């Protein structure tokens, strides 16, 4: 694609985004950018609106104010064909995996490829087993249904589905939650690899600091509907920001008061 344009503008850009539900404002004035082939991790307390941010970028929710830009193009509150084109650029791992429970695992994984009609059923099945191996699942899992999998396995199937079609932009909503430490490390490496080798742009959410250090190029901290700190992952330890320090060290006392969010 047009590399000249892409060098000048970030891949994803949010400008003064505001989003509220009924009377509750979740994002008040959020600005954020992710550069090409960069991995940004959003951290922040539970319920601060991290998942909502991803859904606003994807166009699954309309925003009340501000802009969403992809490759410098305005993609705010699209509908119809524009929305379809917009969404086809993304791969998304949902926080709750969101697997289709009427379909077996392998059809879930290669859903987009089957729908686009590029693969025969046999090729699709082989591709699915290949992708399952990438996320550390045994080949015999392919014929099970999502309800027959553990939470961590569902998460990994969701991950395989998100990366199956090699999207330009991948969102990971808490990719390592519910996984054991070893498997979490495998997944972290996979995410890092997606960015380094495949050249995708990644935006992830995680509470797991090990994971942040492993996958992030840059980190942004969300608090009370705004990004209160953003910087390179190396600078995170001595950010000088009391909120960030409290969060990454996991202390109960500090400027962030639980229950007042």
């Amino acid at each position, binding site marked *: 694609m047009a590399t000249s344009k892409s060098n000048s503008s970030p891949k994803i850009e949010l400008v003064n985004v505001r989003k509220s539900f009924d009377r509750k404002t979740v994002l008040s004035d959020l600005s954020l950018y992710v550069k090409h082939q960069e991995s940004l991790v959003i951290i922040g307390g539970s319920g601060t609106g991290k998942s909502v941010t991803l859904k606003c970028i994807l166009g699954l929710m309309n925003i009340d104010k501000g802009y969403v830009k992809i490759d410098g193009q305005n993609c705010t509150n699209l509908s119809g064909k524009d929305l379809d084109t917009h969404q086809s650029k993304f791969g998304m791992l949902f926080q709750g995996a969101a697997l*289709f429970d009427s379909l077996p695992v392998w059809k879930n994984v290669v859903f987009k490829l089957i729908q686009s009609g590029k693969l025969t059923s046999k090729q699709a099945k082989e591709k699915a087993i290949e992708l399952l191996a990438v996320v550390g699942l045994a080949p015999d899992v392919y014929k099970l249904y999502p309800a027959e999998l553990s939470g961590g396995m569902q998460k990994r199937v969701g991950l395989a*589905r998100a990366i199956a079609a090699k999207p330009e932009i991948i969102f990971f909503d808490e990719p390592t939650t519910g996984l054991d430490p070893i498997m979490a490390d495998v997944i972290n490496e996979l995410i890092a690899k997606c960015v380094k080798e495949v050249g995708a742009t990644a935006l992830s959410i995680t509470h797991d600091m090990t994971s942040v250090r492993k996958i992030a190029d840059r980190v942004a901290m969300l608090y009370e509907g705004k990004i209160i700190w953003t910087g390179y992952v190396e600078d995170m330890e001595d950010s000088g920001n009391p909120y960030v320090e409290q969060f990454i060290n996991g202390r109960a006392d500090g400027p962030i008061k639980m229950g007042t969010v």
Partner: protein
Amino acid sequence: MIDIITNPLALIGRAALRFFYLVGKLISFTCKSVVCCFTPPFYLKQLLKQLVDIGYYSLPVVGLTTLFTGMVLALQSYVGFSRFAAENAIPTVVVLSITRELGPVMAGLMVAGRIGAYIAAEIGTMRVTEQIDALSTLSTNPYRYLIAPRIIAGTLMLPVLVLIGNVIGVFGGFLVSVYKLGFNPANYIFQTWQYLELHDVTSGLVKAAVFGFIIAVMGCFCGFNSKLGAQGVGRATTNAVVSASILIFVFNYLLTGIFFSGR
């Protein structure tokens, strides 16, 4: 609660606004879905699955309902007609009531309970577990993939169910009349055919198609807009069945009025 005492007008106003908001939302949802029924891409596998789910698996329910309706109809009309020696009208009364009215309405209500609830619960769960969001991130329009097949299947299959139900219902009346009320079988069948017109059957089938459409649309609409959580899905299911049933009665009257003036 305090509102009711201090400001009843505001309460009425709010309820009215909410009602019109919902009606508007339903109409725009219906238009969007109908457009998706007629424009590609079509998901034939999904359609086939829905045809089987809605059509084939509803057959026992519809069959039993219309069978007993036909049987009761024969008995009840015998009570009335024997008082002025008009028993010969029973076959005609049974077949006309079944084809014009009771077949479509009974089948519609039973299918609303069975399929309306099923659709609302399934789509509502998909909404709550973000599967509908996931569909759109996988380049698949949920209106085309989930809703259009259900609406097409509902609209096509209900007339088929009603046609079969009509035959079974008339047969129910036949059974009771012949084995309990002592009618001559050949005579009963002759009487059944004699005053039956094509219009009686087709008007019933048109009603059935409309009811099938209503059931599928209400199931999809309630499920699609389900509030989060198990409670939300439960409420969506109830709303789908209740609203579809009420709309069936309303449209039954409207359509009967139209057919009536046409005769």
